[in-house]
């Protein structure tokens, strides 16, 4: 398993780390049990994401995905941000190792959650996504330490 140059850049210099004090939407997904939590803060003006920040507890791929995903939705409309897929995040990172794809799913999920948080706060119906039915997809491999 080897990370791309892009993943390494975003992991080593993650963009948009932090919190937004009075965020318009907050989404937290994952669970410390699985070793990954991602929290996204959105500042939204006129349906446009004017600022976004994240906090992530997780692996290199999770941190790089958070960084890339937040970059990708910054300045976009809420609708555009909703349609950002984990695959697009992974592609923007020049790919992720197969066992790490789920870390990018986390980013998609967290953005959806933050957007719905914003919509509910505004009194709108939350949008339906594929995550509403079940948890995110983890690969079942065993742990290895020599």
């Amino acid at each position, binding site marked *: 398993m080897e990370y791309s140059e892009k993943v390494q850049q975003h992991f080593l210099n993650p963009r948009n780390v932090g919190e937004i004090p009075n965020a318009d939407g907050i989404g937290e997904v994952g669970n410390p049990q699985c070793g990954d939590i991602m929290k996204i803060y959105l500042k939204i003006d006129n349906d446009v994401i004017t600022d976004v920040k994240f906090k992530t507890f997780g*692996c290199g791929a999770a941190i790089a995905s958070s960084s890339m995903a937040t970059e990708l939705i910054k300045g976009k409309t809420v609708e555009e941000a909703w349609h950002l897929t984990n695959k697009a995040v992974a592609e923007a990172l020049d790919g992720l190792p197969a066992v790490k794809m789920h870390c990018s799913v986390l980013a998609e999920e967290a953005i959806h959650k933050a957007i719905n948080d914003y919509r509910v706060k505004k009194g709108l119906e939350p949008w339906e996504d594929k995550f509403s039915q079940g948890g995110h997809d983890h690969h079942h491999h065993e742990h290895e330490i020599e």
Partner: protein
Amino acid sequence: MEEKRLVYMDHAATTYVKPEVLEAMLPYFTENFGNPSSIYTFARKSKRAIEDARDKVAKALNANTDEIFFTGGGSEADNWAIKGVALANREKGNHIITTKIEHHAVLHTCEYLEKRGFEVTYLDVDENGVVDLEQLKNAITDKTILISIMFANNEIGTIQPIAEIGKIARERGVLFHTDAVQAVGHIKIDVKEMNIDLLSLAAHKFYGPKGVGALYIRKGVKIDNLIHGGGQERRRRAGTENLPGIVGLGKAIELATQDIEGHNAKLITLRDRLLNGIMDKIPHTKLNGHPVHRLPGNINVSFRFIEGESLLLLLDQFGIAASTGSACSSGSLDPSHVLLAIGLPHEIAHGSLRLSLGDKNTEEDVDYVLSVLPNIVQRLRDMSPLYEDFLKGEK
């Protein structure tokens, strides 16, 4: 481009081959390459070299020379010991006792046997990683044919009370195997005194080459072969002998066991300097494994609020090579079974770091790690929503 500073602190994963060891091996690749089974003079050197290595291993363990069998590594030795004893003693019983913190070479072998009609008890360990001797005694039934308990754990470094376990096993007439892959060359071992019936070792954990190990089989132990074929290793393990590898193993075990105590004194001083530094400088840190009965070079700590893979990647940026029990580093769902077995919650297990020191590590290495690690941990904590929650909770 300038080579980055490398501080290798992953000796429990594997060690470099010591120059003296490599030097001892070299004549056996291109010059004295004869097949030890051949009868001509030229091959006699090969035969002698192997018997000389066997002597050295026997001496290091206080075994007899004809009780040492060379293998292709630690995993093969573990597989052979467990499957071989299980299958050869099937009519006596089908019960095996092991622990929850064994290496996968033991655990997966036991699981495989479970599918083939064997029953396996996986003993718990306490929060320091030590097996409970009472639980062990109670687990033994008349169907029990084998107890397999590792000498020292590869992750948390905890050393088991092997002599006591050996005594119990011998008294109850059950064979006792110990996976000593992490212990050989690092802790004094006496198979006779400790009542060990079978013991696995691997050269690459004590500055010998990879791809060669050995199984000690006490005389009289009934065991099936794992690798059938030619008559090598007194008909117990087929295959043309890994001549240079075996010579290297012999040299390495000789070097590693000639002054274990003096050597460990130095290593422990270094390790404790590092451990104390970490505990002093980094809050919310927990030492995993036994505080005293642990491998001399082993440190295993958990940093709360952060995840191990990202920690390793950042350490790597500074040329520090280490290891973690986090699930993320292997792409699996669960963190290390060892860390879970000592009772760590998942998220604490995820934040674990193993630093295993070796012969070439220096005080400068230690101080370098201490100058880098706290900032890295802080950097990851600053990114962590768990840390954020924790800070908010504190207010």
